């Protein structure tokens, strides 16, 4: 039975305005469906709803905005359908551009920060145990797993409702009992060459997402110094092939110093030993093409970090790409990369930098009939359906080598 506080009731009754009342009404319906007993405060929000998917989303945002909706906690905005910094990259129709822009404006008018990134964790770092309302599947899994902050698997609409009210149902991953590992995946027995590969992360993510179902996974065998960008790639892939909103990397993520801690006294309902054959199959599953000519490369899904810019800059030393090479990133990280002198040499090599959006959700690619190479499990998962392209999946290094050659170059020896 849901118990609302007096301020919750007042908001529901319209004392904070019409938009807050609508937002609270929706939250109450969600809380009742979830069986929550109360609402709790959040300290921040990340809004996914600013990406245009049709008029319904625009109708909702403009109704909230027109009826006085205003965020009451610091709120970042997810990628949108347009790159406002580089509008010439957009190849879609004018109506789509106009509506995408209206939607972005509506969320900024309600107090959302124009971050337009799917990787809010690159600038906003909620602390261990802090409750937030984040939407965008990769951001959710990163917040819960890598930061140890607490957000449920929020989607469009509920994100802005939480931001306007500062409240969410006390349910799901806000509660200790739903943060315990229920499935255990062992990767420690894999060959060292594979465990050292950066592709280990998106491939393991793709595999775990597909196998774990609704169980919360723990992974044993990731290095204690696994890089953040690796965990980002793992979580994004697992949240694409499955509904993963949190994982534990035993010995690496904050709520899993040990397997016992991750399990929280429970016993796993599923245990899987991941072997090389499974990884090989998952790697193949992420490609629809493995050789031949290349049309483009796209990296930075989720958005490229400063560390990834540094790595790419070191890889393209003097190269000149013969196909389009897109890097998706945020305005904030682009500014940092430019300040570090990383951007000019990349542009000289032929890199096209995309901000505010991503190449798999908006018409930016010039040629959607050819093969596009990516190092992102998430991009590889969604692009064939979204864009109709063929995908080749490979490491950042393989992407660079392929873009310079104009054909797919992948090192098969690691996976043999």
């Amino acid at each position: 039975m849901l118990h609302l506080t007096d301020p919750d009731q007042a908001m529901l009754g319209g004392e904070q305005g019409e938009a807050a009342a609508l937002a609270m009404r929706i939250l109450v319906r969600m809380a009742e469906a979830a069986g929550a007993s109360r609402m709790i405060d959040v300290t921040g929000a990340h809004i996914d709803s600013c990406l245009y998917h049709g008029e319904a989303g625009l109708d909702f945002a403009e109704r909230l905005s027109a009826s006085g909706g205003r965020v009451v906690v610091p709120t970042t905005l997810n990628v949108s359908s347009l790159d406002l910094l580089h509008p010439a990259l957009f190849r879609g129709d004018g109506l789509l551009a106009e509506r995408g822009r209206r939607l972005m404006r509506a969320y900024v008018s309600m107090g959302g920060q124009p971050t337009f990134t799917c990787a809010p964790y690159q600038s906003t770092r909620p602390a261990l145990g802090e409750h937030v309302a984040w939407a965008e599947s990769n951001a959710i899994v990163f917040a819960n797993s890598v930061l140890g902050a607490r957000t449920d698997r929020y989607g469009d609409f509920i994100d802005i409702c939480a931001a306007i009210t500062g409240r969410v149902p006390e349910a799901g991953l806000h509660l200790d009992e739903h943060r315990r590992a229920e499935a255990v995946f062992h990767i420690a027995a894999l060959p060292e060459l594979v465990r050292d590969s950066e592709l280990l992360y998106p491939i393991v993510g793709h595999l775990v997402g597909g196998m774990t179902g609704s169980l919360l996974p723990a992974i044993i065998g990731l290095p204690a110094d696994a890089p953040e960008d690796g965990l980002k790639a793992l979580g994004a892939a697992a949240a694409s092939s499955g509904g993963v909103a949190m994982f534990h990397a035993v010995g690496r993520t904050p709520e899993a110093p040990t397997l016992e801690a991750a399990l929280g006294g429970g016993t796993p309902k599923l245990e899987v030993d991941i072997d090389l054959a499974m990884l090989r199959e998952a790697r193949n599953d992420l490609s629809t093409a493995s050789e031949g000519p290349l049309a483009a490369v796209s990296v930075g899904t989720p958005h490229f970090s400063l560390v990834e810019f540094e790595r790419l800059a070191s890889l393209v030393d003097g190269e000149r790409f013969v196909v389009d090479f897109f890097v998706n990133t945020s305005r904030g990280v682009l500014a940092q990369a430019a300040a570090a002198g990383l951007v000019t040499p990349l542009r000289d090599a032929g890199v096209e930098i995309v901000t505010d959006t991503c190449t798999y959700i908006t018409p930016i690619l010039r040629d959607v009939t050819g093969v596009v190479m990516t190092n992102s499990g998430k991009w590889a998962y969604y692009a064939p359906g979204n864009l109709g392209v063929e995908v080749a999946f490979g490491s950042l290094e393989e992407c660079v080598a392929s873009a310079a050659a104009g054909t797919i170059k992948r090192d098969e020896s690691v996976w043999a």
Partner: protein
Amino acid sequence: MSTRSLLPGVASGSALVLDEPISMWGGLDPGTGVIIDARHPQLGEVVTGRVLVMPGGRGSSSSSSVLAEAIRLGTSPAAIVLSTPDDIVLIGAIVAEELYGITCPVVVVDRTLFDRLKTGMELEVTESGVFGI
């Protein structure tokens, strides 16, 4: 009780049972109601007017917008039957009801009932259950 109503309403239609969870974003074209996820076993099926029976949601949190848009356009399922509750599906349906007054009922049924539902069955979804008609 074998049925729990997350979004109350009454609807009927021919069942479409999904063998795997789907992300409506990237998986459903709201313009046509066709399943477009290249990896999904029900690729190419039309959800419009059907009672969509699915194990749960998956993937992107943009799915709520896609479902709301499909409801606005009249390409959505008539009702959605889940085996596990799914917030992302539910809020898409709630917002569409708030904005347009169109109800796409969402219910959760237990495993026994869920396993009895087969594609092509004519089903009625109400607040108290899912019935063959």
